[in-house]
């Protein structure tokens, strides 16, 4: 760190000028004399990294099981597979992938539910016509 800081100090003045010219928010590198400021910065940058873990996206597991049992079971099993992907990706650290899998599970649950409701409502007219 002590070897790098003088380089940062040498570059700081031209960088600051360029930042002023380009109107960019530029934080100057730490001054070598003051050691306390960098340490809190590192802590503050690490702590959000741990707190930044978003809450688990909905896996819709119970709804996919219920639609598998009570509605159409083929899209329901696809939804269960997607909800398992939500879990594996979330605990693997791929949060955007988990969110995408959660949305896919939602779509397949809606497909299963709509097919189940359609088959239940169209059953009576079809039987009446057939008999």
């Amino acid at each position, binding site marked *: 760190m002590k070897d790098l800081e003088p380089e940062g100090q040498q570059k700081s003045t031209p960088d600051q000028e360029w930042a002023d010219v380009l109107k960019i928010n530029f934080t100057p590198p730490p001054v070598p004399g003051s050691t306390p400021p960098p340490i809190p910065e590192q802590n503050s940058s690490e702590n959000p990294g741990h707190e930044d873990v978003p*809450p*688990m996206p*909905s*896996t819709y*597991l*119970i*709804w996919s*099981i*219920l639609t*598998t*049992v*009570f*509605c*159409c*079971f083929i899209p329901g*099993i696809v939804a*269960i*597979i997607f*909800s*398992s992907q*939500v*879990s*594996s990706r*979330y*605990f693997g650290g791929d949060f955007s992938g988990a969110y995408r899998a959660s*949305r896919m599970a*939602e*779509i397949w649950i*809606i497909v299963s539910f709509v097919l189940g409701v359609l*088959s*239940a*409502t169209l*059953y*009576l007219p079809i*039987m*009446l016509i057939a*008999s």
Partner: protein
Amino acid sequence: MANFFQLIKTKVPLIKSKGAILVAGCSLLLFYFIFNPEDSRFMPQCIFHKITGLQCMGCGAQRMIHALLHADFKSAFMANAFLFCSLPLLIFFIWVEISRSRHPRLYARCHSLPVIISAATLLIAWFIVRNLLNL
């Protein structure tokens, strides 16, 4: 389409949606209390069972609900043994889903990968076993 549940949550006021779900559930329970699925030909049946002749995981669920509402636990078990046995677990998972904002840790723990995989394998195993043994 993808944000269907979110749209329902934001657009429909919470009390109204809760009331609608409660009314629909109570009317369904009343319907299954009055009508016996085995009596009439016009009760909706499983399309998969009609086409292939195989029993799916949920076949017998209507008979099971009818028997449960009449406190006839033996015929409820005979109608769909797996669903009858996993009923307390299903109620627990619905409770976890409802109280997700209050207990997010419990939600994440109950929805870990082993739990989901075991649920899926149990469902598929029940599907195979019931067709092999004609349960």
